[in-house]
């Protein structure tokens, strides 16, 4: 048995192990392996390596199982959202047209009359006169939708794990946890991660207290945006469905506090959280130069 025979067999050995050879070629490899100890040993080594590789790559820790379940729930909720409008599309053009007209009318009322309730709260809050109401509504709505899809998907017994959260927040946003300094008082921080909704990417902290869930989102808006340090930042409070959103725009980042609490309470929590979060963003911008 020559070296060239062995060389040929080595070239086709992977196809043989993958059961991708034609019957005749398969038989000739089998015959060779039966009579050549070196190639048979090589075949065993390759088979063993595959088994070990599979073992190495499929070995998952308990955290990964949890994340699998969480990811699956998020996908399921995104699908449920996706399926909603599709059902309504089947009810016929007439109803659809009527719905569009109604939606347009409601939209006008929404933008124009003041579902965007700008709530001035003593000296800490300024009215968002320079911000487009439509823009506020759109970005706030996405924050609320992400709060519903992401924050509300965590089971009631979900507990905070410092290491998991620091990993999930990435080194860039992990320092946000000490920066918020245990605020808001009496709320439990249960989760933190980077997530996205409608192409918006957020650093997301989730708090809970007495069945209420509170989200703090930081969204990088425009990395080249100028910090609005020359004038006071405006806190805008809007409502969307059953949720309240307090938000602030630094020029480079937007921060949102979202909850199902009464508007005054949501705003009070935002007032606790915004100064600390703004301090964190300021340091982030300094680091970025």
């Amino acid at each position, binding site marked *: 048995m020559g070296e060239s025979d062995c060389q040929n067999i080595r070239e086709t050995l992977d196809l043989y192990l993958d059961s991708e050879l034609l019957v005749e070629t398969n038989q000739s490899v089998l015959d060779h392996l039966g009579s050549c100890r070196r190639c048979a040993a090589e075949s065993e080594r390759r088979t063993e390596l595959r088994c070990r590789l599979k073992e190495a*790559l499929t070995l998952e820790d308990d955290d990964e199982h949890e994340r699998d379940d969480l990811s699956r729930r998020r996908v399921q909720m995104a699908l449920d959202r996706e399926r909603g409008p599709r059902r309504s599309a089947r009810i016929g053009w007439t109803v659809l047209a009527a719905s569009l007209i109604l939606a347009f009318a409601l939209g006008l009322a929404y933008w124009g009359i003041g579902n965007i309730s700008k709530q001035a709260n003593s000296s800490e809050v300024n009215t968002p006169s320079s911000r487009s109401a439509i823009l506020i509504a759109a970005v706030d709505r996405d924050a609320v939708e992400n709060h519903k899809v992401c924050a509300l998907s965590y089971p009631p017994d979900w507990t905070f794990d410092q290491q998991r959260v620091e990993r999930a927040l990435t080194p860039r946003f992990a320092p946000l946890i000490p920066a918020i300094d245990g605020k808001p008082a009496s709320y439990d921080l249960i989760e933190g991660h980077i997530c996205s909704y409608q192409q918006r990417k957020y650093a997301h902290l989730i708090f809970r207290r007495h069945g209420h869930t509170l989200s703090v989102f930081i969204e990088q808006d425009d990395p080249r945006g100028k910090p609005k340090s020359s004038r006071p930042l405006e806190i805008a409070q809007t409502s969307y469905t059953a949720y309240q959103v307090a938000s602030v725009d630094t020029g480079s980042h937007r921060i949102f506090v979202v909850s199902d609490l009464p508007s005054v309470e949501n705003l009070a929590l935002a007032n606790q959280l915004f100064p600390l979060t703004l301090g964190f963003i300021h340091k982030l911008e300094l680091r970025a130069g």
Partner: protein
Amino acid sequence: MATSRKEDFDRLAFAHFRELRRVALRVCEDRETADDLVQETYLRAWRSFDKFEPGTNCRAWLFRIFFYVRSEYRKSQARQPLVFSLDYVKESTLPTQTNTSSDFTLEEIKQAFAELPELFRIAVLLSDIEGLKYREIAEVLNVPVGTVMSRLSRGRRMLRAKLTTLASRSDEPGSVETRKKRGRI
């Protein structure tokens, strides 16, 4: 009817959720991107579920959508294409392998795998870990079967070469790793 479509989709597609996410985690640079792309894959799969032929391979269909979504994502990130030499390792130039994979820890094997160029890593992942046939991998990656065979062959050779190199390093006299592995420490 709609309920039946939804139930069929959930039953067929979610049966492969863990496998798809596992592949996503291996080919995306971070967990968040992997989860985003898995979510987008399921949304697109749902939208085109009418085109899925019952009885065909749902897992390969999902993988195909995933790799399409990922390629769109990478274009949007304006990534540079990966450049590597196709002559990286030839069978005839390989040193004679005497080590078995049990000489390596799972972590070392994982590390050697992670260092493979992406195209080869994906081919090996789909074949050796997910058990797809060559024809299915070709469909998933939208490349000819010959390309799959070539990528697999080169990917596996590189993996073996990396482990052989690792073995020759740790086989140096007095190497702590060697002695640990062989149970002498």
